[in-house]
């Protein structure tokens, strides 16, 4: 039962390692987008501190969006997707493995890099902790929802823009609770409610996302 799960996970991690330039590009994009904001809004430290959570979350969201096409694109193009769909084991399992590998190679580096960027915006230590935690809970939702969008737009002309149109509205709640958690912590009201809601969302996405994604992949491979 777990054989395809492990096989897909190991292969995708190996592929990410072989093509690590792609992973680094995503990380670089995240850093650069975050660093652009001070040029746009001015370097006033108080203002920067106030908008830092929002900036980092939007940057993480855009970085995720731009790398989503990697999730199934190559497998769709070279026929691996067909093979996987013909596996006797349940489709959701290996879909989940692919999303997990994607999260580990794309989102986890963002979570790790976020505190460093937070320091550029003069965030205090507790805020950095909450930021990390909110990203760690929120980015899985982005990966799971994004996977559905990526599967739906496989092989379409202008798929990238279409993908953005499809998934960005769905990302809004994650952005609200993720950035809100940090702000709530900084304003002293405590971030636990936000973080709980994010965990709930992550669980919900974990239960429903792979099914929708598997269905969308079947449609795409037809």
């Amino acid at each position: 039962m777990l054989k395809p799960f492990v096989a897909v996970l190991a292969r995708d991690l190996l592929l990410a390692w072989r093509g690590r330039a792609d992973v680094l590009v995503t990380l670089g994009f995240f850093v650069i987008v975050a660093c652009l904001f001070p040029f746009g809004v001015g370097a006033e430290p108080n203002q920067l501190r106030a908008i830092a959570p929002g900036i980092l979350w939007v940057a993480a969201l855009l970085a995720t969006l731009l790398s989503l096409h990697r999730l199934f694109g190559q497998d769709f193009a070279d026929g691996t997707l067909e093979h996987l769909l013909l596996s006797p084991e349940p489709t959701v399992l290996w879909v989940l493995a692919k999303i997990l590998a994607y999260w580990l190679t794309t989102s986890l580096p963002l979570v790790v890099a976020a505190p460093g960027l937070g320091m550029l915006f003069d965030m205090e230590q507790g805020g950095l902790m909450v930021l990390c935690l909110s990203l760690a809970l929120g980015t899985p939702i982005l990966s799971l929802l994004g996977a559905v969008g990526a599967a739906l737009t496989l092989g379409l002309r202008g798929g990238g823009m279409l993908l953005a149109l499809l998934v960005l509205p769905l990302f809004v709640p994650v952005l609200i609770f993720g950035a809100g958690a940090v702000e709530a912590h900084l304003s002293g009201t405590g971030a636990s409610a936000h973080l709980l809601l994010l965990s709930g969302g992550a669980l919900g996405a974990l239960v429903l996302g792979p099914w929708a994604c598997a269905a969308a992949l079947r449609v795409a491979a037809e």
Partner: protein
Amino acid sequence: MLETRSLACLRGDRLLFRGLDLSLRPGEMVRILGPNGVGKTSLLRMLCGLVAPEAGEVLWRGTPVRREREDFHRALLYLGHSAALNDLLSPVENLRFAVRAGGDEAGKESCDAALERIGLAAQRDLPCRVLSQGQRRRVGLARLFLAAGRPLWVLDEPFNALDVGAVADLAVTLDAHCARGGMVLLTTHQDIAFATPLRHLDLGALAC
């Protein structure tokens, strides 16, 4: 055994064929004929369950495959147009992944043996992007030597891009599979000499 009942296929808004009845018993080999675009690949993909039939049913051992998907896919080996190779992986890595993703066990030795059998021992650790078309095709075909437990082989143009020796070798492999009681369903534009009596299904005659 594999059966179809009045299968119909719609691609885009073109009805490619309809009323297709086919049965494939152990030890049989069927070659699907027809000009380009008549729906040979669509038929194979439909038999595998990748495409839902517009009408009709595919049955495996008397049960509709929609209901017993897992059993059917455990018995099926499908090699499509593209070899399903990732350019960044070596042949042996690709092969092991393909077998394990299909839910089978793939020891390193058996994979090596399969690659050696198909004549790719020297390339086993090169990344697939440096392989030629014929070599890529062979990596895909190496799965045949690891799929003895799967009775139904569905092969889309397996002889493409192979040299003469490899063609003959593949024909022997397919014959051996049928001799063990396996079933082979294939498309090809070449006339190959098989030891197994070959049945033909002319899709061109069924076209709408």
